[in-house]
C-alpha cells in the first residue's frame, strides 16, 4: 500500500513563528526548468508591517546580547545547517555536486561571520588620541531594524546578506528571492532551532515590487539593503522613499557570492558612537 505524500506548506517566518500570509494568498514556485515545485506564501504589506514590529521588539535583546553570545548563536546556525546538508542540496536542485558545494559555502560563510562578532569592534572601533585629559573611544553600534531584499541566489546569497546584518546586533526583515523562495523558508526552520531569538530574522516570501516600497518607506526601519532588487526603477524609488527618515541604504553592483566577502556589509549597517571619559576618575 502506498503512503499518502506529506508535503511541506511553505509559510512566512515572523517573530519566530511560521504564520501564513495575513492576506491568505500564495503563488506557485517553479524550478529553473519550469516544473511546479510548491506554493509559497505571498506576503502582503501588512505582513511586512508585522515583521517590522517583530524585528523592533527583538532589537533590544539581540543588540544587548554579548558579541560572544551572538557569535555562538551564528555558529549554532552553521551547525544546524550542516545537519541538513542533504535536504538543502535537494531543494536547491541542479547537479547534486554543485548544490552540495553551495550548501558548504553557505555554512562556511556563517562560520566566517560568526567569528567576526567579537572582533568587529576591535577592528572598526578606536581609542582616539585627543588634546586633553580624556579617553576618547569610538565603538561601532548596530543601527536597528534592517530591511533586506535578498538576492536571487537562494541559499549562499541569502546567508551572505543576512549574516553580516545580524552578527553585529541588528535585526532584519528579509524579502526572499521571488523566483526561488523555498530554501529561505527551510533556512528559517534552521534559524528557529538555533537559539536565535524570535524576531531577529523575519523572512517574507512574495512579490518584491509589492513589498519593497512599503519597507523602504517605513519610518521604523533604519536601513535598507537593496542587493536583490534587479529593476533599476524600483531601486531608485526605494532609495527615494528611504531618504524620508535617512535610512542607511546599500545598493551594490553585481556581487560574486563565492568571493571573499570582506567586512563592508557589516560596517554598512553600523553606527559609530564616540564617548569622552575623563582620565583619572
Amino acid at each position: 500500500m502506498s503512503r499518502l505524500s506529506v508535503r511541506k506548506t511553505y509559510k512566512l517566518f515572523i517573530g519566530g513563528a511560521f504564520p501564513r500570509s495575513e492576506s491568505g494568498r500564495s503563488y506557485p514556485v517553479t524550478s529553473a526548468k519550469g516544473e511546479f515545485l510548491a506554493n509559497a506564501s505571498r506576503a502582503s504589506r501588512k505582513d511586512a508591517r508585522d515583521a517590522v514590529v517583530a524585528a523592533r521588539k527583538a532589537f533590544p535583546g539581540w543588540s544587548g546580547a554579548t558579541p560572544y553570545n551572538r557569535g555562538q548563536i551564528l555558529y549554532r546556525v552553521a551547525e544546524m545547517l550542516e545537519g541538513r546538508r542533504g535536504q538543502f542540496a535537494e531543494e536547491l536542485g541542479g547537479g547534486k555536486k554543485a548544490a552540495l558545494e553551495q550548501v558548504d559555502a553557505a555554512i562556511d560563510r556563517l562560520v566566517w561571520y560568526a567569528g567576526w562578532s567579537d572582533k568587529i569592534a576591535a577592528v572598526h572601533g578606536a581609542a582616539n588620541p585627543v588634546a586633553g585629559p580624556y579617553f576618547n573611544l569610538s565603538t561601532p553600534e548596530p543601527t536597528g531594524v534592517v530591511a533586506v531584499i535578498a538576492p536571487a541566489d537562494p541559499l549562499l546569497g541569502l546567508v551572505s546578506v543576512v549574516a553580516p546584518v545580524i552578527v553585529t546586533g541588528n535585526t532584519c526583515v528579509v524579502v526572499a528571492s521571488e523566483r526561488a523562495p523555498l530554501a529561505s523558508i527551510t533556512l528559517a526552520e534552521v534559524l528557529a532551532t538555533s537559539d536565535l531569538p524570535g524576531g531577529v530574522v523575519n523572512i517574507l516570501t512574495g512579490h518584491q515590487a509589492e513589498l519593497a516600497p512599503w519597507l523602504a518607506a517605513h519610518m521604523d526601519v533604519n536601513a535598507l539593503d537593496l542587493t536583490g532588487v534587479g529593476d533599476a526603477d524600483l531601486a531608485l524609488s526605494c532609495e527615494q522613499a528611504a531618504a524620508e527618515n535617512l535610512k542607511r541604504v546599500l545598493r551594490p553592483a553585481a556581487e560574486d557570492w563565492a568571493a571573499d566577502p570582506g567586512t563592508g556589509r557589516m560596517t554598512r549597517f553600523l553606527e559609530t558612537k564616540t564617548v569622552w571619559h575623563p582620565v583619572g576618575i
Partner: protein
Amino acid sequence: MVSTVTTSLADVASSDAALRAFLHGLPGVDRVGADQRAAMLGTRSIKTTAKAQAIDLAISMVDLTTLEGADTAGKVRAMCTKAVRPGGGAPKVAAVCVYPDLVAVAVEALRGAGAGAGVKVASVATAFPSGRSSLDVKVGETAAAVAAGADEIDMVIDRGAFLSGHYMKVFEEIVAVKAACGAAHLKVILETGELATYDNVRRASWLAMLAGADFIKTSTGKVSPAATPPVTLVMLEAVRDFREATGRQVGVKPAGGIRTTKDAIKNLVLVHETAGDDWLTPEWFRLGASSLLNDLLMQRQKLATGRYAGPDYFTLD
C-alpha cells in the same frame, strides 16, 4: 427584563435582602454567546475615511492616564500638554487621569495651556487600586481630589465585599463617595478581572448605576485581564437596559489593555452595535489608556502620509 426592573427599581436598595434579590434576579449572561458576539463584532473591517473618522473619535474619547508610583509633576505637565495638542492636528483628548496628589498640577497645567478648556481632569480615589481602606479615608480622599479641582472621580468598589455577597456595603460606599463628589462626575471601577463571571459583571454594573454612578469603568489597569471585549459588551448592555428602565443614561469606560488602534475601533463598533450611537461621544464613552494614544497618532499619520509611522517620531510617555 425591563418590566421586572421597573416594578421593583424604586425600592431595590431598601434592604440588603431586596438588593440581593434584585441583583440575583437579573438574567444570567450567556458566556459563550457574549464571547462569540464580541469576537464577531471584532471582525468588522473599518477602512479609509471611516477609519480616519474612527481614529479621531477615539482620540477625543481617550482618558490619557498615568498611574505609576513613579509619577512626577513634570510627567503630568508633559502629559497635559500632549492631551491638549496630541500633534498632527489631532483633536484633544477627553481627559487626563492622575492620582489625587497630582490633580492640582494637572489643573494648573491645563489652565496654563489656554486651549486646555475642554480637557477634563480625572482623579482616581478611594485607595486605588485595591480599595482596601476605611470609608472615612475613601471619602476624605475623594473630597480632597475634588477640592484640588478634579472634574471626575474614578473610584474602585470593594471587590471583597461584593464577592462575599455584601452588596449593601458596596452600595452604601458608592453613595457616600458620590455625595463627596459634589458636582464632579463619578466613575465606578468594577475591576472585572477580579469578578470572575460575566453574571457578576452585570450585577456590579447595575449595583453601581443604582447607587448613582455617572460612568461604569471596567478596570484599574493593574489587574489582568482588564477590559476584554465581552466584558465591555456586557456593561454596554447594562447601561442600555438601565436607560430603558429609568431614563437615566450612564457612560461606559473600558480601561486597561487597550493598546492598539484596532482595539479602540473594536470598542467603538461594540458601542455602536450594543448601546447605540447615543453613547458614541466623549461624554458617554471613554477609553482609559496610556500607550493607546501614540498608536492612534501613528495610524493617523499612516493614513495621512501613506507610509508606516515609527515610534521614534512620537513622544515617549
